[in-house]
């Protein structure tokens, strides 16, 4: 590669890890180095396809359950295999009871779980994509009417668009995104240096209580209201997402 800068600074730039000064230097360098421009484009193609290919492999639920069972059983790892085995038996029995209840009481809940794991992954992917420069918003405005006007005719449901600057969540704008093949509306908020995306789509599912989780270091909180599903995701603390949830609910 002819350009020495390509080898190094380019990756720091690509990963957003350069200091502000080096970043500005590299931007200037890009203006007249076609090698680096090309290399950066190549890196982007690869990163995009890595994201799209969904290579992240989520562990089986059984792994989490086993670790939890281990924690609860309070076993001393050294010698007490006997207790370990009983821990497993108890966990398996508990699992069977729950599985039976779930199977009897809530048909198809298993599908829902798979659906939810996939959905959370899809939403976190979309959130990460949106953090790339220029991808956060299609309409850039803190004015709820402007954002609302932009969404008119683009989605087939009406949802609340509100700026919560007074409560610490400033509306940055909105965009359309695609999650698991479905078009969703997204509102982007700034929260003390963090970006929060709220994904919104219509649903016919019966309303259930709010759920929360973490994927790849991002937190999400999902809830339903008025036949719409909301999912807020961010690297902010879970409590902050919970606050946003309450603002939407209120």
């Amino acid at each position: 590669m002819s350009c020495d800068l390509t080898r190094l600074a380019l990756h720091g730039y690509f990963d957003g890890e350069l200091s502000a000064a080096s970043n500005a230097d590299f931007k200037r360098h890009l203006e007249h180095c076609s090698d680096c421009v090309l290399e950066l484009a190549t890196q982007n193609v690869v990163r995009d396809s890595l994201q799209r290919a969904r290579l992240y492999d989520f562990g089986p639920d059984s792994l989490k359950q086993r670790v939890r069972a281990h924690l609860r059983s309070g076993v001393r790892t050294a010698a007490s295999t006997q207790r370990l085995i009983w821990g497993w038996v108890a966990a398996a029995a508990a699992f069977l009871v729950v599985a039976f209840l779930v199977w009897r009481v809530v048909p198809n809940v298993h599908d829902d779980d798979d659906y939810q794991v996939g959905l959370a992954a899809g939403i976190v992917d979309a959130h990460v994509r949106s953090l790339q420069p220029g991808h956060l918003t299609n309409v850039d405005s803190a004015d709820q009417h402007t954002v609302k006007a932009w969404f008119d005719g683009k989605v087939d449901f009406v949802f609340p668009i509100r700026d919560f600057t007074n409560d610490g969540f400033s509306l940055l704008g909105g965009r359309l995104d695609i999650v698991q093949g479905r078009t969703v509306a997204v509102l982007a908020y700034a929260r003390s240096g963090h970006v929060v995306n709220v994904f919104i789509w219509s649903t016919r599912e019966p309303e259930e209580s709010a759920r929360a989780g973490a994927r790849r270091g991002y937190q999400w909180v999902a809830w339903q209201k008025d036949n719409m599903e909301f999912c807020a995701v961010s690297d902010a603390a879970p409590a902050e997402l919970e606050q946003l949830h309450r603002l939407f609910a209120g």
Partner: protein
Amino acid sequence: MSDLDPEDGLRFERLVLPHVDAAFNFARWLLRSRADAEDVAQEALLRACRFFRGFQGGDARAWLLQIVRNTCYSWLEKNRPREPTVEFDEELHRQPVATPESIAIAVEGRERLTRALETLPPRYRELLVLRELEGCSYKEIAAITSIPLGTVMSSLSRARRQLHCALVNSGCREAIA
């Protein structure tokens, strides 16, 4: 030697359990097998339980992934001693520069990407998994892999070059076949 008292147990659930997926994903890519990853990730999590008292707070994910990594490498040494962990010969594998067009063809499809990633030596693969899949910062990568922070960028640059090379190569091979 007891594992954790109830208070630490709760803390462990709150801080470490959210990263079980990350532990599994990392092990899966290091070992290139879901079945082995399930065993080794579990072993690493139980180890994490045991070491949890020594955890001083801070980045729980990086702390856990560091344990997962050590567990994986020990496991590889024991179970697959022949697997090369050595670095590519850079000169031998020096490639014509990949262009956006040539790479766009090569990166199509999950399987092809998976295969390309899996052909890389683990020391490169882990960097790409941590950065591109797990979204770790350089600082976290340094903490997890024990690479000095100052060399994360150059190591990543080499890893990416290897990945491009693997992608373009497999593309060529497939085109011929």
